[in-house]
């Protein structure tokens, strides 16, 4: 299951982050690392991007990035 499959209100735990590269590095720096609890807060009015809550703050990312983040 990926972060993209979670519905608003759903909670999950990060398992892995996909391929190496600058985007993945940024995602990790923002605190999305394996084991982190993550909650989908809402989807933008036009269906993309999504807003998630982790480590006590809100982060937004696009669905195609969320798709690479495996959660459980």
């Amino acid at each position: 299951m990926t972060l993209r499959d979670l519905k608003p209100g759903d909670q999950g735990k990060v398992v892995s982050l996909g391929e190496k590269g600058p985007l993945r590095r940024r995602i990790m720096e923002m605190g999305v690392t394996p084991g982190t609890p993550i909650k989908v807060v809402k989807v933008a009015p036009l269906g993309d991007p999504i807003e998630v809550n982790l480590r006590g703050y809100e982060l937004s990312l696009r669905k195609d990035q969320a798709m690479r983040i495996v959660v459980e």
Partner: protein
Amino acid sequence: MSYTVALAGNPNCGKTTLFNELTGSKQHVGNWPGVTVDKKEGAYKKNKEINVLDLPGTYSLSPYSAEEIIARDYIVKEKPDAVINIVDGASIERNLYLTVQVLETGIPTVIAMNMMDEVESRGDSIDCEKLSKIFGVPVVPIVARVGKGLEELMKVTGQVAAEKQKPNEIRIYEQNIEEAVEEIMDFLTEGSKDDRRWTAVKLLEGDEIILESLQPEQAKMVQEIVEKLDSQCQGDAEAAIADQRYRYIVQTVGEAVKKAHKGHAETGSSKLDKIMTNRVLALPIFALVMYLLFAATFSENFLFIPGLPSPGVWLAGIVETAWGALTGLVEGGLTAIGASDWALGLALSCMDGVGAVVGFLPLVLVLFLLLSFLEDSGYMARVAFVMDRIFRHFGLSGRSFIPLLMGFGCSVPALMASRTLENDKDRKITMMITPFMSCGAKLPIYMMFAVTMFADGNKTTIVFGIYMIGLLVAVLSAFLLGKIIKGNGVSNFIMELPSYRVPTLKSVLIHAWEKVKGFAVKAGTIIFGSTVLIWLLSNFNFGGMCDMEDSFLASIGNAIKVIFIPLGFADWRASVGIVTGWIAKENIVATFGQLFGGVSDEVVEAVSAGEQALPAITSVFTPAAAWAYMAFNLLCMPCFAAVGAIKREMGSWKWTLRTIGYQMVTAYVVAFIIYHLFGLFY
């Protein structure tokens, strides 16, 4: 003894607020070499010996963006006497990710634990003394917004800088990573132990910039060590390092922070956000906010009340009146001392030229006060969140929306607003297409042609048509430029949505003032210079002072008019109009008035009254040529004030010239197509 202290912290952690509180109004804003990122410095207002430098807001010391490279180069290479690391106590885990990297550099550091009021109102508590013991650096609780704790912070910082007090060597990584770090440190030759350790960690994180700076044989050895470590860490040393840093942080936070609620607490901010980004309400609310922003700046009938000027227009009126009075004084003074005609003419046209810039200032000020408010409050991030889906289709991100929208008012503040874009490529493209949004000053040009040449046609249709051409060209350009311009990877949208906060008046004012001041100085010098030049060209020839028809400008107009044969307006007066339009686009109407045998003031008045202003232009322009001419002026190089803004924001002449070049070529091609296409109908 004087010290330099650098402020480092995440975006939205209150760093700018702290900087403003520390330095007051005595700030020096410049640019970091080679990039458009602001470099702000200022003396601490209560102790002039401490010079405070504001580093760009960063989440990490990895080379992800220009801001991060600047921040880390400054900390690692320039080595300030101390770093004040501002931490947003309300999202402490993510903020400490930067902190541990700053501590790893071994530089004397003080941690300013900000937003302590928010932490307390949530019922949480942070044990600063405990953190201080763990990190080996002072941790001072502050509330930057209200200036609480700042004297203590600066007192401690002064001591740390004086004693060069180093942080503890914190143990973050597991055995295998530590071994790899030592292995790399062994063959690095340059720098202190701290420097080498930091470099080694960055190399293990796959830092390309540092890797490239090594000798080839060193680089090869590093790669071997990284590969070995990769295989030990399930193929991914970089992820392991980030992971272990966060593990260390979670453990530390667990020791020093007590949370009232477990998990995600419902705050006032998140309640407000439920409304602001609600599925149904988000777009209407956004439209309303944008309308108010626009109306407060540009509207002549504010809030639909006829004749009520908006704050921006009202202020602009006052400034214009004052400037007019000043011009009158200058004229009177020069006449009284018997100045020659040409001196008087030059002085007056300089007053007019500079006046055009001064007249912009109130609009810029009001717009930026409101924008600063929206930005500091956290709403701007939501706008990007809501609009991102639409803008992605054009290869941009949601953040480009604001500058483009503002472009319909005036390109100058719009171009300046583009600096809120993180991605360098997005920023460049946005700036290149912003002038295609037809600005207010171009409206009189369309009106002149509409009322004179298309008397039976619908004025609104013509003006609307031109605006649509601009939009269409902007969209196509975004596509095209997105393919051509190289950027740092994919345009992305990994963005923090900061909590809503009521900005302080002081910070909004300082924010707006900085932008207005920059605009006045830089654009003012360009406008002044170009005004003098055009005045000289339009009033002189080799024989001395002359009428405009015989001037250098007329000769130039005659020389370049051949270029416009394919566009249908090969007339020297039309060419001169384009040139004078670069001073200010509304100048074109005044120039046409002079050159086509009217009194320029009367023409301007007739145009605004909707009367057939200049029958003579029908002898030069066919309807299709008029369309082409309007489109050309819409799309070609914007006024010098806007060029000044482009230069300032691009930070390089190369990109400024590329932008102008692109706009010129686009204008020519589009006008050509329009002339020939419309020629089929008219």
